[in-house]
């Protein structure tokens, strides 16, 4: 039976203490719902209140909040997502990470809006959450095993149609950007897998049979019908994305010089003829895969049919990994990218950070900063064998792989010799697949993203590159601050509602608002402005969280390479990012002072005044 108290919600939060193998179940507080909605918002509020400032992210003091939102698991399109918030072992600051697929709906069906995971188990543990209870089970038999194999074994043991969170060998040994896998998807960025590993938690198994109630059935059906229609007619969600997946933008980014090549040394990718979305579609994609309730099916099952990587497969490859294991490493062998992505998932590594670090290592090798002797083999750009070797070495902590797996910031710190100028990260998070010298907005987006360099807190490429009718000048600073701020607030809503961010390419803010209203009937959520205020509240609270961990304006920056080193060829020739101008305007619009601190009045307006700056 569905929960009738709050429509759209399961109505309960489960808190688990791994140290004592204990758990408590409490009602989801109404003021938490009204002010923070769910997902990322729940994470921000709970972590700010409960996490000890300055704690070691890999100690038992760290907390993981795994949360759904009101829209998760509903008929609303693309509602299969779920959020994990914690303190990141890669960056030392705020982290929220999002997983697609089916885990979110299952957690709600098991009766919980969120699970809060605390403490540290004495031995490898599997946490089993079902309708009828919670149990702490021995995980020693699957400790050390790959993520896919582990999930298979768990499925045999706990039944078909379970959903999982599972770490691989990389997470077990607390590699700083280890991920958590769920089916063929995962919580990718920022090292949440290492946090799970540090807690001796190998896997979480979820299975439930409860339903989700609807406040205004007719209204909700109407808006959902409308949403599905809108998604079908949008050229993105109804055209390019279903066909090519996230790679639908690949050629556009290359053409604009916004796809970084060889660790951001250039924006020109000569191999694009053999490595692009059409080749993927014709040669490698075998079928389309969708998450829960998603008509867009951006995911693909790919397999290599011939050559060196014959028989290798992956669910993907995603645009981001086509870059990280491809162009970032000067590599255009799609077979190796498919195999590499599969390996990252199997060992449990974030493929974006993995590829970024490999590109950095290749540049260090070519510049003579790392020798063949130190690495063990030659590793010029374009060497696909080296990429595969590095992934395994990072996962297992072998040789130079141990240092690499600590992230590019730490690696450049230890190597010295000016490497920090081309260590491509912000606040310790490796930069993903867009070069801000080809779209200035992404520079500001990276610099001000709450979890460090990230393309999912604001994604300005739509306005700066893809929008053919109403395109902004990608090399101008004008209006970028406003664009980035508005997206950050709205994306925080999507990530708290919790649905897939790609809805943004087919639906309006009004759609999301109406859907929330008809589903939940919450009176306080009257207008789109009310909803966006929640997003702004969340974004300010994650800022306060990271400031408490020592972040200030000086960290809102980009690597030297993007600010001082113009590329020498292609569409971005001679360009560097004018971050200062955008950043000043951004602080102004946010009502943050010159130190990047939210102003008192802003905090009062958002109801956050009891939180200290």
């Amino acid at each position, binding site marked *: 039976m*569905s929960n009738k108290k709050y429509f759209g919600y399961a109505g309960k939060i489960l808190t688990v203490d791994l140290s004592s193998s204990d758990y408590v179940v409490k009602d989801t507080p109404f003021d938490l719902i009204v002010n923070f909605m769910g997902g990322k918002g729940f994470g921000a509020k709970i972590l700010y209140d409960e996490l000890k400032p300055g704690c070691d992210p890999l100690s038992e003091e760290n907390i993981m909040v795994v949360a759904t939102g009101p829209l998760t698991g509903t008929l609303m399109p693309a509602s299969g997502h779920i959020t994990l918030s914690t303190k990141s072992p890669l960056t030392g600051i705020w982290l929220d990470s999002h997983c697609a697929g089916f885990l979110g709906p299952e957690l709600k069906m098991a009766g919980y809006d969120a699970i809060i995971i605390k403490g540290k188990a004495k031995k490898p543990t599997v946490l089993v959450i079902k309708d009828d209870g919670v149990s702490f089970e021995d995980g020693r038999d699957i400790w050390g095993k790959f993520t896919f194999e582990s999930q298979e074994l768990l499925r045999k043991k706990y039944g078909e149609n379970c959903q999982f969170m599972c770490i691989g060998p990389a997470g077990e040994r607390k590699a700083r950007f280890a991920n958590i896998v769920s089916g063929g998807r995962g919580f990718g960025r920022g090292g949440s897998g290492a946090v799970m590993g540090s807690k001796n938690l190998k896997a979480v198994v979820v299975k439930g049979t409860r*339903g989700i109630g609807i406040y205004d059935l007719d209204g909700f059906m109407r808006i959902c019908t409308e949403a599905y229609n809108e998604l079908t007619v949008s050229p993105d969600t109804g055209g390019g994305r279903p066909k090519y997946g996230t790679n639908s933008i690949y050629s556009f980014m290359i053409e604009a010089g916004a796809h970084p090549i060889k660790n951001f040394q250039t924006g020109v990718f000569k191999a694009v003829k053999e490595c692009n979305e059409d080749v993927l579609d014709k040669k490698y994609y*075998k079928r389309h*895969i969708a998450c829960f*309730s998603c008509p867009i099916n951006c995911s693909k099952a790919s397999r290599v049919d011939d050559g060196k990587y014959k028989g290798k497969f992956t669910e993907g490859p995603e645009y981001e990994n086509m870059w990280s294991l491809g162009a970032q490493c000067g590599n255009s062998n799609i077979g190796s990218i498919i195999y590499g992505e599969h390996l990252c998932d199997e060992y449990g590594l974030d493929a974006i950070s993995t590829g970024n670090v490999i590109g950095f290592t290749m540049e260090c090798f070519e510049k003579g900063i790392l020798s063949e002797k130190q690495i063990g083999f030659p590793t010029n750009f374009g060497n696909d064998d080296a990429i595969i070797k590095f992934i395994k070495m990072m996962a297992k902590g072998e040789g130079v792989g141990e240092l690499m797996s600590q992230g590019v910031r730490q690696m450049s710190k230890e190597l010295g010799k000016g490497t920090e100028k081309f260590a491509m990260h912000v606040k310790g998070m490796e930069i993903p697949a867009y070069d801000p010298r080809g779209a200035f907005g992404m520079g500001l987006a990276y610099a001000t993203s709450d979890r460090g360099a990230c393309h999912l807190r604001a994604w300005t490429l739509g306005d700066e590159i893809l929008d053919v009718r109403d395109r902004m000048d990608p090399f101008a600073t004008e209006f970028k601050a406003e664009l980035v701020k508005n997206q950050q607030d709205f994306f925080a809503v999507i990530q708290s509602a919790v649905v897939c961010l790609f809805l943004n390419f087919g639906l309006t803010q009004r759609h999301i608002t109406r859907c929330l209203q008809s589903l939940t009937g919450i009176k306080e959520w009257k207008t789109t402005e009310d909803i966006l205020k929640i997003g702004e509240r969340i974004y300010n609270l994650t800022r306060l969280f990271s400031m408490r961990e020592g972040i200030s304006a000086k960290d809102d920056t980009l690597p030297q390479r993007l600010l001082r080193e113009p590329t020498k060829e292609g569409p971005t020739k001679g360009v560097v990012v004018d971050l200062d101008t955008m950043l000043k305007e951004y602080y102004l619009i946010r009502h943050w002072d010159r130190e990047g601190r939210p102003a008192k009045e802003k905090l009062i307006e958002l109801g956050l005044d009891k939180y200290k700056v």
Partner: protein
Amino acid sequence: MPIADHKKCTGCRICEIICSIQHHKEMNPKLAMVRINSNWPWEDKVIICRQCKKPKCVEACEYEAIERVDGCLRIDEDKCTACLECVKACPFEGVVVSEITGKPIFCDTCNEEYLCVKWCPHQVLSKT
């Protein structure tokens, strides 16, 4: 009667969700009369009863628990012992077994409205 072209199925479960709304006014795929079985990453298979004229499942049921009501097969949960002989007997892998009761559930065609057919974004399901 609904039939499925598995190859086109993406595994989105919209059919399951809409089925549960139609019959139970809540969103709960576990109550649906259609079920997607995933064989990641290569296949998602649609399990749905196509309402045979000479149903093998009925023949196989020792307890006469499957009966035809208004033209559609229905399970009599009091008679059903969850032996699942019907599952084995169905030539189309069409029997959905409820994870709540452990007993079969048959598609009732939504009074011939076939909402799963209407809502499937990829025309996987069709009525014959």
